[in-house]
């Protein structure tokens, strides 16, 4: 990684990256096939998100069964897979524990299973591959980009960790799971499966907030569940976006599409050969827009990462333009 070539203005009109290769912009292919290839992870994510929703809905309303048991009984807060594998939202379970209830073993096993699943994948795989609110905020983000709406104000992304801490304190003081009682994620998902009430108002609020007030406002700044999974991801979560350092020209196309652009820290990524921050949601947007194929999904032994790269601790913000 030498940054001299960026600091020195290029001699001719073609900009050069730090690897002395010309910076190429991302160009959307003309053909439909090419477009679908660029959108492939968005399509996969929608299939997984809607498929999960459909499995819950089908098991609840159409009696979908496999091996004589409902496929997915319950909702994303807690459920039972194939009638005997309990699953539970670990953050909801933690809140109920903080509320002072002695938990039944089913929910504890369920929360443990879900935690292990996300520890074996990437922690925030939840956010971009399962969470139903992601579809709402992605839609808001897309419209926002089309209309070129500017932020009303700025918030710090660390705010979500404050909300996470606050939710546990309020839970402990009030004796009820504080975030679960207002969580738009739970409300949206629950009402989609068990009947629509007035929960859509909460969804509308998030949509409008993300659309007009703050870019990636909910998922990127406020949501304590995302913060919880980020913290879980610090423990393990080997599914990361790998970063092929020599090919990167710092064209920042990835930063422009990333919902958590602070994770695309080129200096850190260059040293570690991956996007190491657990705030990365593994949505795969950056992979398909990269003109140099620098970024890829990989399973990485993160133990190795922390032993080999203890020196590159300092962070720099990504350069937007040179």
């Amino acid at each position: 990684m030498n940054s001299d070539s960026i600091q020195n203005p290029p001699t001719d009109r073609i900009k050069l990256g730090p690897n002395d290769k010309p910076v190429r912009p991302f160009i959307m292919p003309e053909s439909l096939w090419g477009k679908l290839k660029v959108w492939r992870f968005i399509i996969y994510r929608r299939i997984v998100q809607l498929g999960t929703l459909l499995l819950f809905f089908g098991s609840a309303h159409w009696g979908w069964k496999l091996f004589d048991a409902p496929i997915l009984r319950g909702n994303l807060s807690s459920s039972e897979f194939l009638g005997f594998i309990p699953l539970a939202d670990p953050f909801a379970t933690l809140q109920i524990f903080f509320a002072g209830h002695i938990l039944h073993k089913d929910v504890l096993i369920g929360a443990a299973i879900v935690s292990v699943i996300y520890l074996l994948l990437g922690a925030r795989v939840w956010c971009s591959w399962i969470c139903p609110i992601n579809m709402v905020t992605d839609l808001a983000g897309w419209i926002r980009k089309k209309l070129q709406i500017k932020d009303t104000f700025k918030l710090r992304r660390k705010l979500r960790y404050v909300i996470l801490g606050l939710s546990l304190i309020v839970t402990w003081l009030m004796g009820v799971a504080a975030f679960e009682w207002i969580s738009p994620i739970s409300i949206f998902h629950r009402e989609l499966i068990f009947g629509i009430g007035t929960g859509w108002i909460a969804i509308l609020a998030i949509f409008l907030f993300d659309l007009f007030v703050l870019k990636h406002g909910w998922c990127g700044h406020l949501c304590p569940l995302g913060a919880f999974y980020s913290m879980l991801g610090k423990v393990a979560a080997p599914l990361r976006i790998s970063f092929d350092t020599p090919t990167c020209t710092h064209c920042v196309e990835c930063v422009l599409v990333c919902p958590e652009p602070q994770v695309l820290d080129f200096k850190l990524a260059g040293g570690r050969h991956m996007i190491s921050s657990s705030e990365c949601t593994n949505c795969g947007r950056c992979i398909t827009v990269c003109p140099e194929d620098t970024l890829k999904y990989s399973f990485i032994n993160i133990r190795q990462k922390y032993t080999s790269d203890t020196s590159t601790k300092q962070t720099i913000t990504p350069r937007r333009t040179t």
Partner: protein
Amino acid sequence: MAKTKPSRRDFLVKMARNASLATASGSLWAYLLQQQAHANNLIIRPPGALQEKDFNAACIKCGQCVTDCPYDTLKLATAHDSVPIGTPFFEPRKIPCYMCKDIPCMNACPTGALSHDLKRIEDSRMGLAVIDMENCISYLGLRCEICHRVCPMQNSAITIEHHPRKTSKHSMFIPIVHSEDCTGCGVCVEACPTDEPAIKIVRADMVQGKVGEHYRLGWKNNGEITQDFKAPKRKEMEEDKPASGLDYFNQGESE
């Protein structure tokens, strides 16, 4: 980072500001929870539910009880219902609880908000049936007794008492609810023929009083009253059985 070194005063002010913001929003959050989680005491919960406060703390709002209910009795509260959001409840007038022997809703509960301690559905106490004596047509003098006949706790949770009527030779058939057997399933509420049901399920603690231990009911001979006094034992069955007409007429005649 070529800023001037922040003074201690700035640092303290900043800390105080952030702490106040957190406290203010935390208090608002707590206030909203207080409003929501303790909104309604009239909710009928599924069998085995903990006390309302503990139930609200323990319920993860997953709806597995709802999915497993074979009669579609249970519903999850939306923000529209005046029930804490996401928690299961039922409205007996629409669909009552039919008291499945295997209690699938309770067994589906992953957190124990529906306590798995309940072994027989007959022991569940979802609520207590209460009769409006002014609007019950049996009390008005008509023959009805529908609640008595549909009651799954046959002839124990609801019994019929015969009362003489002043203006006619016919008796009134009065339904009486017994709290020691009523599970609060609400089958009677659904069956009640009046426009607005004259029998309703309410949470038992909303209508039941408590006698207090210092009241000694001397005519009840099922317990010690004082150390030196024991009520004479009665043969209850014989006393309560009405004497047959023949015996009445022949009383004192024989021998």
